[in-house]
């Protein structure tokens, strides 16, 4: 039975729509710059990479353990967009990033990454509410709202990273024994 578990336990990533030419338009010909980590995004522009980095860190911030930024969730997202998602999903996601900037500029007068923490959170709360109110933004497709896609990317990217899986949660790749029923206090954190 457990041959199915692995896939079932992982939430399914899916997302956005549009054509390659539209992506090219969104990308606006701007070339990605290498970040300080030496990472060169393949799909995201430098600005989009920065936006994704800040946005994901707001979803899973550094606390007493590192957050999404330290776990390089932005690199995971760029990798998935480049190599895993369909073109339609990729474009839908990139369009979502554009929407964040448009919204940020019209509502708060500057780009998302330049907003105060409170304004960023306020904007994200509005995006989340939109996603809840309209879970199927592209009728006739199974594309999810940008916010849901971004959150799913962040959650999966973070908790499958070494930081998320073994610093924030507890990783146990070779447990050695099985204890079916023990006090939670002896573990203290969820198994990743």
């Amino acid at each position, binding site marked *: *039975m*457990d*041959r199915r*578990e*692995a*896939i*079932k*336990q*992982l*939430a399914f*990533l899916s997302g956005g729509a549009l054509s390659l030419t539209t992506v090219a338009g969104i990308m606006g010909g701007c070339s990605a710059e290498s970040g300080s980590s030496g990472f060169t995004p393949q799909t995201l522009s430098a600005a989009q990479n920065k936006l994704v980095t800040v946005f994901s860190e*707001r*979803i*899973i*911030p550094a*606390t007493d353990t590192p*957050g999404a930024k330290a776990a390089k969730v932005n690199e*995971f997202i760029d990798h*998935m967009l480049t*190599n*895993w*998602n369909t073109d339609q999903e990729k474009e839908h996601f990139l369009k979502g990033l554009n929407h964040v900037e448009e919204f940020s500029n019209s509502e708060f007068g500057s780009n998302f990454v330049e907003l105060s923490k409170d304004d960023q*959170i306020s904007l*994200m709360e509005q995006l*989340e509410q939109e996603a*809840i109110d309209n879970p199927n933004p592209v009728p006739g497709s199974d594309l999810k709202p940008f916010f849901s896609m971004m*959150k*799913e990317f962040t*959650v*999966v*990217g973070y*908790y*499958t*990273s*070494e930081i*998320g*899986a*073994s610093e*924030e*949660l507890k*990783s*146990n*790749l*070779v*447990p*050695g*024994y*099985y*204890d*079916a*029923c*023990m*006090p*939670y206090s*002896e*573990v203290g*954190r*969820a*198994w*990743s």
Partner: protein
Amino acid sequence: MENKIKEYNISQSPEQYDAIVVGSGISGGWAAKELTENGLKTLLLERGRDVKHGEDYKTEHMPPWEAEFRGRGDRKLFEEEYPMQLRSDVINEYNYHFFVNDKEHPYQTDEEDPFLWVRGYHVGGRSLTWGRQTYRWSDLDFEANLNDDIAVDWPIRYEDIEPWYDYVENFIGVSGQEEGLDHLPDGQFLPPMDMNCVEKDVREKIKNNFEYRTMTIGRCAVLTEPHKGRGSCHYCGPCSRGCSVGAYFSSQSSTLPAARKTGNLTLRPNSIVHSIIYDKETNRATGVRVIDRLTKETKEFYANVIFLNASALGSTQIMLNSTSEAFPNGIANSSGVLGHYLMDHHFRVGASGSFEGYTDRYYHGNRPNGIYIPRFRNINEQTIQDSFIRGYGFQGGASRSGWGRGTNMKGFGEEFKNKLRDPGQWNFWLTAFGEILPYEDNYAELSDKTDDWGIPQLEIHGSIKDNEHSMRKDMAATAAEMLEAAGAKNVSTNENEYLLGEGIHEMGTARMGRDPKTSVLNAHNQAHDVPNLFVTDGACMTSAACQNPSITYMALTARAVDFAVEEMKKGNI
């Protein structure tokens, strides 16, 4: 196809063995072990690459952050080259190298209602990736066709196979709990794995609320203590990546080492069997024609006895492709039933619910096993159903939700992160596995398309019918009623589309029976028509029951080898 093979240059001299086994998976490994231990020089042919125990388990214990797609696998590659394996939900980034590339190994099926053929072409076959659930059959199963007056009667009964179940279980190691049920006989068990606290509670409540229903821990071919030189389970969880300590039964961990120890085994990977060579004068299968997977060279091997263990459909494909004047429709197919009565177990129906409380309880380790609720429909006068015959069992289990719930949980930020630091509520899921009746029009035949090796592809047709559809309604209802009686909240049923083959328990197509006019094999898995040809994989099954079938293939194989060896001694074959 006779013509096709002659186009290849037969470049080397034939080789002679006492026995040839085709296929190195669960039943082929057993055939090789038993034949070699009986002193027979045995050639074990495997169509795929070699997989060495331990060293070829490249992803064992690999953490998700080392996997390129964090375990999900290369979606584009899977969709393009593994579409059928992908649809079955079993492949992921860590195990897909143990499943066939559908593009390289195509078969034909219907676009609507396709048959899902999930395969592993390599040494060990699906013994590396199987579910390891191990349940005996009983006479409720062996007498079912006779009592229901459908298909043909099994030529054996429980008493014929019982000692072989003992024999196999003692070798492979099966952990399980004795329950004293007539229709799911106890076996030679190693200590059972434990149920967690919610499962224990549910077991009691099912027992108190439902007559004839029992929830037990899964009986599985995973060691709970060291056994015959193999290590016990260390509870890492994902068995299908391979297990270096050999804690679960596979050809690599168990039967192949035993066969090698005799000095009588020759294992030949990359050897695709094209067909069986038949001699009309002696009425014997004299050997096999093999195409080298890599060089495409053809070679012939000869033996006194041949065991087909290439998987239900693989063995049938070879037989259908073994045509001669005597057998124009495939070797040993005078009955015409070869290819027909294809079965599987239907599933993807069940229910789940959550349990309040127990938030101070957790577990350590990933138990590679769940719970089992044996069949409770149509097992006696009191449980007869009007809407369907036969029955189903449930697999399932309880666990606490993990970080995955974060994708659907409202909120973000520090509070969100802190919530996911703790495990979520306890959930319990049940999935039914039901019997599919043997239908003549669920079948496989040779298509006019060939594969890269010039072998006709299989064309496979089939679907479930009224009896199964009625059973599915009952599966969902009883799953929900048990969870509700056990105190679960938010119980929801699920019934998803099921495609024939998806259970990866495909069986039938060369069935056993008493009458050579209506069956391919006799009570000893010996072809009625060709006495030195044996088929002991899933192809031999006359009905499907609802239990996971591998242990029965193993027991039938050991029993058939014992018979074949006796017959050889007597000079009958």
